[in-house]
């Protein structure tokens, strides 16, 4: 049975209640029987003991966004749940399980007309030696989702295998108690069954996928400074790079991190750093240097709420402007954005390939949502995008590092190559690399660096273009999944709609974009930024059709498929 | 500046030729560097003076090479003509250069350099281990003394400039 909407579960708790563990175990159980899924989380500001919610969506097919509302919401407690209550919408068809001693329901839940059932999870846990309420919640959710008790018991045994028999026993007792407590309850919409998977599947986060994409593309050196929500990329790369003969340096700050990768790349090693908005702000000077000195680099920005420290744990698409326009001077470089957890792998690999081919920095605009979401995905295909830098090896005569080659890409001599010594320079330079301040030299090198990016053939990967019809929904990055789902529903309503989501944001592709918009009468722009940065970017570089609407909102409240669908329906009126 | 304790050890005429050769070669290089500096800073009068001085020292260098006959001076000098401390005696003092320097200043630098070369060879004469080296070193002393005289004569043509020689009413330029 196809169940593309699937089932969504949210588990809340605070003070070490273990809500995130429940989400994790449920996803694992679902994967075992063939479901695909997304697991994300929303958390309070505390390092330990804070309020947290695991948000889980299970479907029978590809899933790339959170649902409009949750079918099942389990509140182990509601302490400070108002901090992210708005992110966990429930409706009349939802079932809410609440502990009578868990505090007051947040208004958005209390006023939702959802069915609310009180189950004393804390008391049930207390009755078990070392019992924990999250295991009660796991039993409850497991049963309501249709998992057998044995599966749940086996799952916890595997998870706690290192913690001793007592721990396993008390957890299993908790699961049993939860399972019993909802014997007479059912979810409004039953969970269908799925075919077992025929292909290999992965459970991976966007940040881990980014790291893997980097390695597949040829990255063998990384440097970085810890920052939420990008740190996992560095933590994934540190052991992996060591295993494939590379290295990672923990830098003293982002200024050092980006300069370290410039150095490593100058030496010939494809290199990457990962950061978030505040770190990117510190890196832009050096990105200008890498642009001028033509050093390939990959910089992953896992975007979070900004400006300034903003909301470090939550997603937003508001670094578009700094990524494209943040460099001083005329500094053409690459900006690309992954469109899903799985696409983090492809896009980072592609960015590595492009950076190396074009000898230029590439900024990968990921975000907290795709970065920190765990997803079940089909194993990403092996693609041929592996960084290949044009290198000067056979030097005859005076070597010109910045020779005005026809395609703008001049072969790079690596240190150690006899007879090709040159100094890479951020000062305006001649073809040889010698500093100059003449108008002609300045123009020649600016032209060269612009043309090499403009003339490159980026192929079809520059954008995702799907569907047909005279309405276009134009979006980018992690919102692509929500837009795709909304377009699916609109199509069922008879509204023919085209999805246009550029993966390559810079340099702009006016011809390809015009072709994608050919015949469109209306365009809906969807983005997660308060200042409608993407809309303004589109206006600056592309001709949009006559009627344009913008659906934009800052983080952390996600833009849901339903809102996009509604905006399309309004056009039918 | 070079001190007696730093002198390369001279135990043969070949050593002496090599050291003398290196001293002149260093002097040429130094004058050429100063000429380049003056070129970069558009002091054309001094470019010419330093080039002339370089040329004069080059003649001297080549003459030593001729006198040395079959000895491979370049290679021999590379091995023995080293000053661990201080500089090669006839090198003009780089630290005394100035973008507005006048011929008088250049000749003062040259005079000091020639004087140091003269002192150097005089000390070789004093410490020469045999008559052959001493005789040869005496010739170099004579030659350097001639150079000192020559520079002194040239200096008569260029009186000491007034104390305002380095006044520049334009401010320095801000670069990076």
């Amino acid at each position, binding site marked *: 049975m196809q169940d593309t909407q699937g089932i969504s579960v949210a588990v809340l708790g605070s003070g070490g209640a273990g809500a995130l563990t429940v989400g994790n175990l449920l996803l694992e159980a679902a*994967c*075992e029987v063939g479901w695909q899924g997304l697991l994300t989380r929303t958390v309070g500001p505390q390092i330990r003991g804070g309020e947290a919610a695991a948000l889980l969506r299970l479907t029978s097919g590809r899933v790339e966004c959170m649902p409009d509302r949750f079918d099942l919401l389990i509140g182990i407690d509601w302490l400070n749940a108002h901090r992210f209550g708005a992110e966990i919408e429930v409706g009349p068809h939802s079932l809410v399980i609440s502990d009578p001693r868990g505090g007051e329901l947040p208004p958005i839940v209390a006023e939702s007309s959802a069915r609310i059932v009180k189950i004393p999870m804390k008391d049930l846990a207390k009755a078990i030696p070392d019992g924990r309420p999250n295991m009660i919640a796991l039993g409850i959710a497991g049963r309501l989702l249709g998992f057998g008790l044995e599966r749940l018991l086996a799952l916890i045994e595997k998870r706690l295998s290192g913690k001793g028999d007592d721990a396993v026993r008390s957890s299993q007792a908790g699961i049993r108690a939860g399972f019993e407590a909802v014997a007479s309850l059912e979810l409004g919409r039953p969970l269908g069954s799925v075919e077992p998977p025929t292909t*290999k*599947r*992965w459970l*991976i986060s966007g940040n*881990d996928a980014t790291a*893997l994409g980097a390695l*597949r593309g040829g990255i*063998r*050196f990384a*440097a970085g400074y810890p920052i939420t929500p990008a740190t996992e990329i560095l933590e994934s790369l540190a052991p992996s*790079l*060591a*295993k*494939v*003969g590379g*290295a990672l*340096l923990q830098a*003293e*700050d982002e*200024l*050092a991190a980006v*300069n*370290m*990768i*410039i*150095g490593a*790349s*100058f*030496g010939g090693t494809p*290199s990457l750093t990962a950061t978030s908005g505040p770190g990117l702000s510190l890196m832009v000077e*050096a990105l200008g*240097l890498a642009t001028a000195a033509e050093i390939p680099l990959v910089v992953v920005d896992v975007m979070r709420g900004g400006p300034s420290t903003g909301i470090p744990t939550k997603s937003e698409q508001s670094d578009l402007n700094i990524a494209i326009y943040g460099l001083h001077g005329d500094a053409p470089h690459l900006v690309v954005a992954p469109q899903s957890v799985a696409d983090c792998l492809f896009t980072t690999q592609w960015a590595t390939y492009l950076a190396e081919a074009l000898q230029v920095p590439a900024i990968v605009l990921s975000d907290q949502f795709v970065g920190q979401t765990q997803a079940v995905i089909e194993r990403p295909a092996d693609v041929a995008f592996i960084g290949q830098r044009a290198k000067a090896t056979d030097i005859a005569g005076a070597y010109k590092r910045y020779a005005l080659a026809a395609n703008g890409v001049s072969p790079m001599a690596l*240190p150690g190559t006899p007879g090709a*010594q*040159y*100094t*890479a*320079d*951020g000062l305006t330079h001649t073809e040889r690399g010698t500093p100059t301040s003449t108008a002609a030299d300045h123009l020649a090198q600016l032209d060269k660096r612009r043309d090499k990016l403009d003339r490159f053939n980026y192929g079809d990967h520059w954008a995702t273009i799907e569907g047909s019809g005279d309405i276009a929904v134009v979006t980018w990055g992690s919102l692509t999944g929500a837009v795709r789902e909304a377009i699916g529903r609109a199509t069922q309503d008879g509204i023919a709609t085209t999805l246009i989501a550029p993966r390559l944001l810079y340099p702009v592709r006016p011809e390809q974009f015009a072709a994608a918009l050919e015949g469109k009468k209306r365009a809906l722009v969807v983005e997660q930024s308060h200042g409608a940065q993407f809309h303004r970017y589109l206006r600056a570089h592309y001709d949009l059709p006559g009627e344009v609407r913008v659906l934009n909102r800052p983080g952390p409240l996600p833009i849901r498929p339903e809102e996009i669908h509604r905006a399309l329906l309004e056009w039918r009126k | 500046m070079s001190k007696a304790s730093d002198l390369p050890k001279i135990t043969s005429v070949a050593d002496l030729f090599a050291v003398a050769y290196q001293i002149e070669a260093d002097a040429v*290089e130094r004058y050429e*560097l100063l000429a380049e*500096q003056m*070129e970069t800073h558009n002091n054309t009068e001094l470019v010419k003076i330093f080039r002339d001085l370089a040329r004069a020292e080059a003649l001297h260098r080549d003459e030593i090479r001729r006198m040395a006959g079959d000895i491979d001076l370049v290679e021999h000098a*590379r091995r023995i003509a*080293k000053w*661990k*401390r*201080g*500089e090669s005696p006839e090198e003009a003092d*780089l*630290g005394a*250069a100035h*973008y507005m*320097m006048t011929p008088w200043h250049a000749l003062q630098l040259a005079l000091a350099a020639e004087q140091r070369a003269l002192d150097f060879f005089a000390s070789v004469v004093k410490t020469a281990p045999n008559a052959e080296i001493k005789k040869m070193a005496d010739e170099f002393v004579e030659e350097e003394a001639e150079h000192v005289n020559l520079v002194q004569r040239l200096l008569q043509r260029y009186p000491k400039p007034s104390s305002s020689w380095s006044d520049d009413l334009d401010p*320095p*330029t*801000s*670069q990076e």
Partner: protein
Amino acid sequence: MSTLDMRAACKPADYKSDVKPIWCPGCGDYHVLMSFTRAFAELGLPPEEIVVVSGIGCSSRIPAYTNCYGFHGVHGRSLALAAGLKVARPDLTIVVASGDGDGYSIGGNHFLHACRRNIDMTYIVMDNRVYGMTKGQPSPTTEPSFDSALSPGGTGLSPFHPLVIALASGANFIARCFSGQPNETATVIAEAIRHPGFSFVEILSPCVTFRPDEKDWKDIVHAAPVPATNDPAKAARRIMTDDGFNLGILYRGDRKPYQPTAKANIDLAELEREFEL
């Protein structure tokens, strides 16, 4: 010619490029350039196996004046760039050139961490106690009484003590030189390059344009009276109490340099298995 023959044939001039320096005549940095080329020749390193990395400022113009590979990067970040380069390319000899503004002010934090990290490279700071490229502002090593447009009546601030900071931060080799003694300086630079780990050489290099008083340095400097110690406590006492014009190698540590030496032992397919269900 075999590599060995080529090494034997290296002369200082082989390490000089044909790019003409823009430094003011009389600048100490001309001497430093000479010391670089003499040190490289003494070591007999092929020029293509040396990389001179720098930031911004008068001193940082030096890479292009050598015939080595060079990187003239942004202000203050040369040590970070060099760290990445050395870890990625341990086969290269890395010399980082900086000044008192580039190295101690905007690049101060990187200085601490480069000392601590102890990657095998040589850091040479040409200290003239002033910003030359921007017309004479005080730097971290400038005396408190230095009067300038940006510090009318003097800075009133104590100068920074780079050698003490290097020692406290973990530098493995610490020396002070004077540009006006290019042969002595060349010997120290060669020693610094030979010494494993992070070597720091501070070169007093007078600025004729904005600090004409520094011409007197040549009469003030003096050789260190005792040889280098490997005892950090002794070195600290010496460096803390000397007059700032004590020249020579002052500290030689024996810390092991940092260099990740991972060999590829698995392929990517194996890494992917971690994510398989």
